[in-house]
């Protein structure tokens, strides 16, 4: 048996958390709280902003798990572009600023029931399965950029290249979707550019939203 694993098996109890664990727990609470507010708030723009908090919290969690490259990618792509995209989307669909009373659909109770049931089931299974599992974070970082890059370009080159094709397809698809809508709406002023699904500049988009 792996000596590290044997070492890890016994002495680690939940009542004596390490510093990393405490930090993870606190950041996790913040992340979870931000996620909860994201899905419950009545202010749509605030939901996007709370999403930034949740995703940022997750980036911190990645750091705590020693996966530094993924953490920065998380910050770059999610916090930097996806949330911005979402905000543009909210703007282009003329989402109301301030509280909107009908942010939740009539499906709320069912959604709550399903989500709670799923949460209970998942947490129960996960806790039951990994109650005693310990991961050793000491030593060289498991998710260091060097390690990640090496594995990515050594073992995952083909999927990586395929992924680029997928992204290209998504790009083209987003353009086609936008252009089709544009062709239908001749009255709309100005050209709309949609790079990688990015919406048009705000003024033109607003005009063509009619």
């Amino acid at each position, binding site marked *: 048996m792996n000596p590290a694993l044997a070492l890890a098996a016994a002495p680690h109890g939940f009542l004596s958390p390490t510093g990393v664990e405490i930090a993870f727990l606190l950041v996790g609470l913040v992340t979870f709280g931000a996620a909860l507010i994201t*899905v419950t708030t009545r202010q749509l723009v605030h939901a996007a902003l709370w999403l930034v908090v949740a995703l940022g919290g997750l980036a911190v969690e990645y750091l705590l798990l020693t996966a530094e490259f993924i953490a920065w990618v998380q910050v770059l*792509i999610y916090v930097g572009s996806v949330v911005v995209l979402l905000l543009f989307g909210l703007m282009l669909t003329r989402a109301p600023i301030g509280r909107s009373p009908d942010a939740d659909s009539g499906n709320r109770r069912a*959604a*709550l029931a399903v989500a709670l049931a799923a949460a209970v089931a998942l947490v129960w299974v996960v*806790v039951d399965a*990994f109650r005693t599992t310990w*991961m050793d974070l000491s030593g060289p970082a498991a998710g260091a950029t060097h390690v990640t890059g090496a594995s990515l370009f050594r073992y995952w080159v083909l*999927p990586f290249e395929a992924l680029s094709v997928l992204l290209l397809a998504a*790009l083209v698809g987003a353009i086609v979707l936008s252009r089709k809508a544009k062709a239908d709406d001749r009255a709309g002023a100005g050209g709309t550019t949609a790079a990688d*699904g990015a919406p048009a500049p705000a003024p033109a988009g607003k005009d063509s939203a009619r």
Partner: protein
Amino acid sequence: MHLVYPAVLSALLFCTGLYGVLARRNAILVLMSVELMLNAVNLNLVAFDVWLSRAARDTLHSGQALTLFTIAIAAAEIGIGLAIVLAVYRNRGTSDIDKLRDTAERPDGAEPGPAAAEKTEATA
């Protein structure tokens, strides 16, 4: 660190996203909730990758690689998703999911309204 912490956090985030997908009315909020779910999965992948890289001497780092792929696909998904939402919004003047009910069962013999045609056109 106990593996349970990231695993439970991941499960909770996933269910939060699940709730959002099911309960939110605005399509963009639904997309946000989808992002939450994807991120929950990412956290899981990273945590297990870190655990397995030590415990099972895994040099493939499949968890991290898949996380990167997920992030890329999520970016593509959000782009396409937003394009669709915008197209629907242009056609319908709304992005509320529960107002897009063209697949609803109608009384016998009722013609599918012009809305249905628009919808198919919009999502085509």
